[in-house]
């Protein structure tokens, strides 16, 4: 085996199918989108160099009168913030609690994970019912305790519609991140935890000084998934509000631009922006974590 793998040609043969697959289904479509994004391509024009407009589509999607893309980007950044600062800490808290060995640990672990296995359509419809003005659980509860409900309903009120759209997504994936972190926590050697306990570490000290530093690689994975998921968010927004004004995110705006307004060039530019945004944040995360790792190793 070692002999086979020492030959670079052999390695190439093994890697080739994946490289071809990746090239045809990832690299080429992205390259084509990049090309389309420089064209004035609508139903009345063709995707040819004759309609080349350079970076005009990229400028237009941010500056054109009435363009909702800047709002969509702002919304996705807000969602990313909520994911990083609300969803992940909450998932970590749950993971830490479960990993400590609470009663019915596996029951709770499964319960928290159930929303993840549900289809987004089901979760979206479920939350539409929860938000309903007349029979929704949320309003029934608020009315029961004498609190006010938002005028226009949760999904239409100017002040609540954006967060009412984000909450179901945050809720749905708490279990996913929790499970990843829980798995990492469980893989920490009991010897380390025992030694820390002997040294007097309990509760928060154990969590912050021992457990969290030891699951940093998994936290990085969760952070990456969370950020990338935020930038390409689509399905839940589509189901809850159809991406109507005030709740648009880049993917819903891109979809409308392409398939409803039939501006395929501008839509492709939006798609490229989403790809670039995901890549940029992934690289940034890698840099940040590498720097931290270097500092720690010093």
């Amino acid at each position: 085996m070692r002999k086979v793998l020492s030959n670079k040609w052999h390695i190439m043969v093994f890697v080739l199918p994946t490289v071809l697959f990746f090239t045809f289904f990832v690299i080429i479509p992205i390259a084509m989108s990049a090309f389309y994004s420089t064209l004035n391509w609508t139903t009345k024009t063709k995707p040819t160099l004759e309609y080349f407009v350079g970076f005009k589509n990229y400028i237009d999607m941010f500056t054109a009168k009435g363009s909702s893309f800047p709002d969509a980007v702002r919304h996705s950044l807000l969602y990313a913030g909520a994911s990083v600062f609300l969803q992940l800490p909450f998932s970590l808290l749950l993971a830490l609690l479960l990993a400590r060995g609470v009663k019915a640990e596996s029951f709770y672990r499964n319960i928290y994970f159930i929303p993840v296995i549900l289809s987004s359509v089901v979760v979206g419809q479920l939350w539409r019912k929860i938000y309903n003005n007349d029979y929704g659980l949320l309003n029934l509860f608020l009315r029961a305790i004498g609190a006010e409900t938002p005028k226009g309903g949760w999904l239409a009120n100017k002040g609540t519609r954006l967060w009412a759209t984000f909450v179901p997504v945050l809720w749905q994936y708490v279990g996913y991140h929790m499970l990843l972190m829980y798995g990492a926590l469980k893989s920490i050697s009991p010897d380390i935890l025992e030694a820390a306990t002997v040294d007097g570490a309990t509760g928060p000290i154990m969590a912050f000084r021992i457990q969290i530093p030891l699951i940093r690689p998994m936290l990085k994975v969760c952070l990456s998934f969370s950020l990338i998921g935020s930038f390409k968010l689509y399905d839940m927004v589509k189901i809850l509000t159809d991406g109507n004004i005030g709740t648009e995110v880049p993917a819903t705006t891109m979809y409308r631009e392409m398939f409803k307004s039939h501006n395929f060039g501008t839509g492709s530019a939006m798609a490229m922006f989403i790809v670039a945004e995901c890549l940029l944040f992934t690289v940034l995360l890698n840099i940040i974590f590498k720097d931290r790792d270097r500092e720690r190793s010093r």
Partner: protein
Amino acid sequence: MKKFVATMLALLLCLSVVPALADQHEEVTLTFGSIWSSESEATRAPFLKTLEEFAEQYPWIHVEVDWNEANAWKDKGDTLASQNAMPDVFYWNAGGILKAMVDQGQVMALNDYLDDETLGRLIDGALANMTFDGKIYGLPYTNACSVLYCNKALFEANNVKIPETWDELKAAVEAFKAAGVTPMTTGGGDRWPTNMLGDILMLRFAGDEAFRKAVFKLEGGTFLDEGLIAGANAFAELVEMGAFPDDVAALTRDESEVPWHDGKVAMYVMGQWEGGNLADKEDFIAVAFPAVPGVDSANAFMGGPAEEFAVAAYTEHPEEAYLLCQFCAENLSKNGYLSGAGLPCWKADFSEYEDQIAPITRQIVALTNEATSFLLWGNTALEGEDSELLMDQTLLLLSGEITGDEFCQNMEAIFE
């Protein structure tokens, strides 16, 4: 003699085989992209009946129906079109929405298949919204129009007059509000039902000519027309009066129709197909949307042949696909009318079916018989981003986030 008889018998045998051979067709399977996935859709039953009739008449053509919810089909259709993967025959809207599909090379022109006899069976102007540069890209199955449906029982119970003018409509809204009844509803989240309401208000306040110029972007067209601004402001006034449920802007059409069908809402602006849902309910009637005194638009209607069946440009069986398209359009026109889900746009003798036609359908027919004009709905007449802008702005009006003046100002962008 024996030889002669034997020859004649053989000849007879050969002749009897000829028609049998002629009747043999190659088995063909066609796909059909349809809406009406929900059992509650009024057009579903007549469409199924039409498909059964087609299967009887053309047993060698098998039809695989892809059922969709109306809004979902628009999304799916646009996505399929981007991959040149439209079904052989499909439902689509007419006007600008169809034009965009035609411009993408997705729709087959039917001129080569349509003969004068078939065209003669269509009502006048039926193909106007599906003909571009002389080419016919679809066949309508209904003559559409939006009307004001009223829950007569609620009007009588609360002693409110069925509104015939704009002022009476406002009075009715006030009266129902005072009685704790939801005056009107619409599916804001889906946008197009709200657009239907905005359209009829602007038509009533501005008249057909001004609104037609605006939505078809004709010479001299502008949304800054006084009548159109008044219409948009009238919409804003209804919102301010609290004519709609509190969460109307978030409701889908299906969600908004639940309390309406349960008899908890007094009025609803919707297309003629809603008549099919109300056909067996005596409490409901259809009337023309209230008139605006001083404006000659009382009998102008939004609608006309606005929905059709079309054939994909790249279908492998164009002849069979045309047969399916034409058969379904003509027969659904009849079956839809008989079930109360539509108004016929193909000429047919309905005298033997008179007692089958629901009273609410007769009311709609009576209204359209008085029609002075039909104007395609704004979101259907306008293309692509203009249509999107109209629906977005109408939703903002419904949410109370912009005024009628701002709506018209923002809509001017379609002329830039």
